[in-house]
Each structure stands twice: as C-alpha cells, then as structure tokens.
C-alpha cells in the first residue's frame, strides 16, 4: 500500500493528468463503441441499401423470399409485424404483472418477504434466454396444444408469454425503484388524511411515480424487441402476417440469427440482413431515447 502511495507521490505533477486521461478514455469509450457498431453494421448493408434495394417494397411488402431462385423478394413487413405483435402481446401480459409486483414489493409486503422476492426476481432476470426458449419449446408448447386444442404450440402466444416472463423482472425492479423514490412524507400525509393503503397507491404513488413506471415499461419493451434466441425457439419462425395469437410468426431478430450463417458473404441476402440490423438498431434506439426523455422528465420535476 505504502509503495503505491509513494509511486503516486513520485509521479507528482504527471500523475494527475495521466490518471485523468485514462478515466476520460473509459468514459468516452462507450460512445466510440456505439458509433463503431452502428458504422460497421451499416457498412455491411450499405452496398445493397444504395444499390438495388427498393426501400418502399422492403418496408411494405410481406414477401420475404431471399433465397428464391427465380424471383428474390425482400419484404420485411411480416417480420416487423411479427416483432411488433409478439412485443405487444408480451407487454399486455408483463405490464400488469410487473407493475402489480412492483407495487406489492414496494408497498404491501413485509421486509422479510421483500428481500426474498427481490432476490428471486433478480434470479429470474439472470436466466439465459436460451433456457427460456427451451422452456417455451417443451413446456409451453405442450401446454398450449393441450389447453387451446391447436395443432401447434410454437406461436405468437408462446413467444409472447416467454418474452413477458423475461421482461417482468426488469419492469419490477425499475418500477420498484420508481415507487421507492416517492418521499415517505407523501404516504404519511395521505394516510393521516384517512386514505387507505390502496388509495395511497392509486391516488398518490401512481401519479407521482408515473414517469418512472413508464420508463420501467419502456425498458421492458426494449428487452422484448431485442430478444432473439427465446423468440426464435418459441414463435414457430414462419413468415406470415399474423392474424391471431395462435399463428406462428417470425421476428426481425430471429431472422438475422437464423439466416446470417447461411447467406453468402457479400450477397444481397447477406446485406439485407444487415439492413434489418440497422432497422432493429433504430427501433431500440428510439425506445431508449424516449425512455431517457421520460426519465429526464422525472428529474426536472423532482
């Protein structure tokens, strides 16, 4: 310990700037990496994006036939619809459960149960997505076939449920933080006016913490949009405009994961997969950006 202190003393006037420079580099590196990734993904797709791809057809046609011999078609509308439908279904299930659990953990349960629940919820967040996919493929698949009497269980419903289970831990922990940030004096004031605990929750806490709770939901959405392996394994992977929760669908992420290995490097197919990557990147970027704006809204008000 002493020697380290001595070294710093000997570095003298050089020590400070060197250390400051290293720390500065660590801070800036995140920006460099993000732009780097965006640049390289875009560079791979660029050749086709500017030469040959009909961008309107790309975004509006549901026909995805990248390997057809006579007539290759690159329409991702069905894939966008797949991602969108699975995400919406997942949020439809995860938001009530997640926010309900956050309210319970933060406001209603005792300290012991609270600790246990928080540990278990973090554990839930730590399960690898391929394990979730495996559960969807075996347990959920059989369950859906049995319960709804449908021929196949690898559907939008299956993917939505698995994604919901994966998003709930994020929604719970961020949502609980948002509720914890509400000053206790508000609860005390409302209770002293005779409000019951439930009235405190929906008349005081929800309005006060609404930005934080919205941020929790949006982070859950981000997770659901970006998730790959679990949806690849559970949704059935069929390119199809979904019409019911019992349809198989395919998502943007799963398409990249499944096809990139097969596409010849430098081919149109290869490049269009990178363009899908850019599209995904943009979607998650927008979701995160909106989340940031919302969170900033909280800070300014507080």
């Amino acid at each position, binding site marked *: 310990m002493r020697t380290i202190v001595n070294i710093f003393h000997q570095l003298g006037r050089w020590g400070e700037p060197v250390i400051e420079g290293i720390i500065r580099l660590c801070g800036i590196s995140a920006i460099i990496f993000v732009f780097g990734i965006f640049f390289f993904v875009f560079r791979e797709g660029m050749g086709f994006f500017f030469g040959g791809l009909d961008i309107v057809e790309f975004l509006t046609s549901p026909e995805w036939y990248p390997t057809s011999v006579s007539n290759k078609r690159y329409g991702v509308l069905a894939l966008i619809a797949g991602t969108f439908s699975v995400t919406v279904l997942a949020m439809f299930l995860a938001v009530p459960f997640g926010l309900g659990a956050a309210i319970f953990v933060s406001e209603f349960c005792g300290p012991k149960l609270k600790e246990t629940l928080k540990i278990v919820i973090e554990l839930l967040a730590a399960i690898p997505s391929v394990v979730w996919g495996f559960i969807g493929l075996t347990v959920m698949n059989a369950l859906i076939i049995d319960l709804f009497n449908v021929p196949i269980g690898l559907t939008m419903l299956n993917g939505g449920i698995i994604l919901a289970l994966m998003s709930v831990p994020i929604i719970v922990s961020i949502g609980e933080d948002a509720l914890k940030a509400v000053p206790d004096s*508000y609860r*005390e*004031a409302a209770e002293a*006016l005779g409000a*019951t605990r439930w*009235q405190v929750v929906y008349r005081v806490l929800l309005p006060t913490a609404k930005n934080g709770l919205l941020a929790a939901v949006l982070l859950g959405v981000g997770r659901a949009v970006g998730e790959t392996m679990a949806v690849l394994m559970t949704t059935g992977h069929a390119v199809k405009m979904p019409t019911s929760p019992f349809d198989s669908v395919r998502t943007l992420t799963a398409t990249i994961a499944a096809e990139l290995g097969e596409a010849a490097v430098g081919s149109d197919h290869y490049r269009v997969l990178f363009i899908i990557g850019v599209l995904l990147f943009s979607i998650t970027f927008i979701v995160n950006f909106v989340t940031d704006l919302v969170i900033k809204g909280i800070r300014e008000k507080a």
Partner: protein
Amino acid sequence: MSPDKKQSKSYSVETRQLNLWYGDFQALINVSVKVVDGLITGLIGPSGCGKTTLLRCFNRVNERYGNVTTTGEVEILGKNIYDADVSLPELRKNVGMVFQRPNPLPISVYENIIFGLRVHSERRIRKRSDTDNIVETALREVHLWDDLKDQLKVKATTLQLEQQQKLCIARLLPLKPRVILMDEPCSALDAKGTRTVEELMLELAGQYTILIVTHNMAQARRVSNECIFMLLGEIIEHSHTEDLFLTPQNSKTADYIEGRYG
C-alpha cells in the same frame, strides 16, 4: 394539576395509563391526560421526551412504523381509539394532523384540499360547483384565498413554505375534524410565517381542539391555553399555560422553563 377546577369542562381527548414501546424502548410511561375541548394545548419538553410520540398516538399514525406496541386507552369523542372495531380512516377524518415539514401532496392546490373528501366518499360524484365552494371556504379560513385564487391549478409543492403549511391546515377543514394535531408546525418557517400560522391557530381554536407540540417555549406561551410538560416519556406537569410558566409546581418543570436543560 387541579382536577376539581376542570370538572365542568368537557374533554375531547383522554388517555388512561397509556404506554408505548418502539421495539424494546419505552417511549411513553403511564400517560394519563385530559385535553380540554376547544382549547389549544401545548406539549413541551426536551427532545426525545415523547411529546411527538404522544401526539402521533392520537390518530394512530405511529403504527406506520411496524415495531410499535401500545397499551392503555385513548378516548377521543367518547370512544377508545385502540379498540379493535375502530376504523382508521374514520378516526383520521376526525383527528387531522399537521406535520413538521409542510407536506402537501404533489398535486394541484385544488386537489390537495379536496383530497380528504375524495378519499372518504369514493363513490359519490361531487358536483364541480360544490367542490369549488369547499375549496374556497377552506382557503378563506386560512387566509390563502386571495393569494391563491388564481393559482388553484398550480402544483402545491411549488408554493412558498408558509403557504404550503397553511394549505396543509386548510386541507383538513373540509373533513370537519374535531381535533387537530400539530407537530412543530412552525419549525420550518421564518418569523413572519410563524406569526401568521400562530394567528391562524388562535382563530381556529374554539371550533377545533388543537394540540401543538413545540420546542419553542415562547410559542407555547403565546398560543396555548393549557400546557403539558413531558420528560422521559412521562407527564410531569399539566396546567394552565400561565400557571405552568409562572408558578410551576414541579422543580423539573421550573428547571426546564428556566433553560437549565433541554
């Protein structure tokens, strides 16, 4: 204490052998006290003597901290509020509380005042004109109407502290409480704010029984009719404010008001 002198009066709060523990620590020891209806009663004593704890017993807001044990009786409006069949919302409707730090809810001035009514009559949809009247009456009673009549939509947490504290008093009034508990209501305010809140208390006395905890002995002398001196969880002396300050019966009281400790 001179019980015979008080016999003709009616009491709005009476405690009998009240004991309270936070975990293993006993904060109140055999507290038996009668608070006269319609007067301002001051609770004084050094920090940690239990005066705030006693105050918080009267609307059971102490129970928010899980490890509280209470024995004995507190009778408010002829009912022991520690009975099993007591409804907390109903109790807190009758016994309002003003806190040390002004704590208006982070909603509009208007909604703050109407909050109590909304909480207590969830089902009934009130007419806008009714609630408008209620808000105006409450704000007029605390002399905030002229300052705030154009700012009813403003978020209450952005007001000046003095206005916030008066708003916290005003929001109790639509519930027509019988007792108002005040826990050092002026300690966050400046001299001018303190004076206006004290004047307000004197105006409200009579309609309401007011109990005020204060560290400020001069304030206790200015506003209270009766005074209770507490030390280490026990009531040492309870009498008319002038008597307590001019001719204290107990040497501990005398030492405290002369500033030998506390």
